[in-house]
């Protein structure tokens, strides 16, 4: 039984990856936001930004999360640099 998530990238990270979003079938064993981040960084090249960018933030279903936040089928996961509004 596969789990599919929607992944969004914002701001400087979006530009480095040259990608705003994708759909991904989670590989076996990838069940948290932290595991997904490590999996994506494993693609190499620009994707290493996912572990090298300082203080990268993650949101799951539009709420701030952390490395331990669990993922479920249909979740929306967003990665982005620290925010700078206001």
């Amino acid at each position, binding site marked *: 039984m596969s789990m599919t998530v929607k992944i969004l990238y914002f*701001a400087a990270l979006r530009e480095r990856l040259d990608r705003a979003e994708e759909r991904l079938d989670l590989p076996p064993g990838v069940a948290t936001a932290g595991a997904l981040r490590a999996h994506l960084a494993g693609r190499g090249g620009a994707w290493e930004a996912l572990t090298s960018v300082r203080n990268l933030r993650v949101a799951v279903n*539009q709420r701030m999360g952390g490395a331990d936040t669990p993922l479920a089928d249909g979740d929306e996961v967003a990665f*982005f640099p620290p925010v700078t509004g206001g």
Partner: protein
Amino acid sequence: MTVRVQRENFDPGAEMDALCAGRLDVGACASFVGLVRAANDGRGVAAMTLEHYPGMTEAALEDIVQQAGRRWNILDTLVIHRYGELRPGDRIVLVVVIGAHRGEAFAACEFIMDYLKTQAPFWKKESTPDGQRWVEAKTSDDDAAARWRE
């Protein structure tokens, strides 16, 4: 309690008037407007583009406003935040808090700005003479938000 995320400009005076309209229980109206400066960290800024995360932005701002409403005895709140391309002198954000007394209105207004700076998913990209650059988050903003956690 109103939160708006929009490309368009806003009129702070008209928004303040609308928030107070028809009520006679307002003794204090504290407000804040953030604007684009022509220079930031010593660099000239010709334009600024604000990116945001549609959906999460509104939810994050509403959550911040609700936290303020639980912490202080206030009557109503308005937050407007713009996105898109802005120029020096343009308004970015408006926070208005009305209440019976000034101390709580001031505190809630400053709390909302401090939390918005660190919790709402907006990112600024500046156009400078040296090209475009993403604005770095400031540790002073984290410090400002952290002092409300005491």
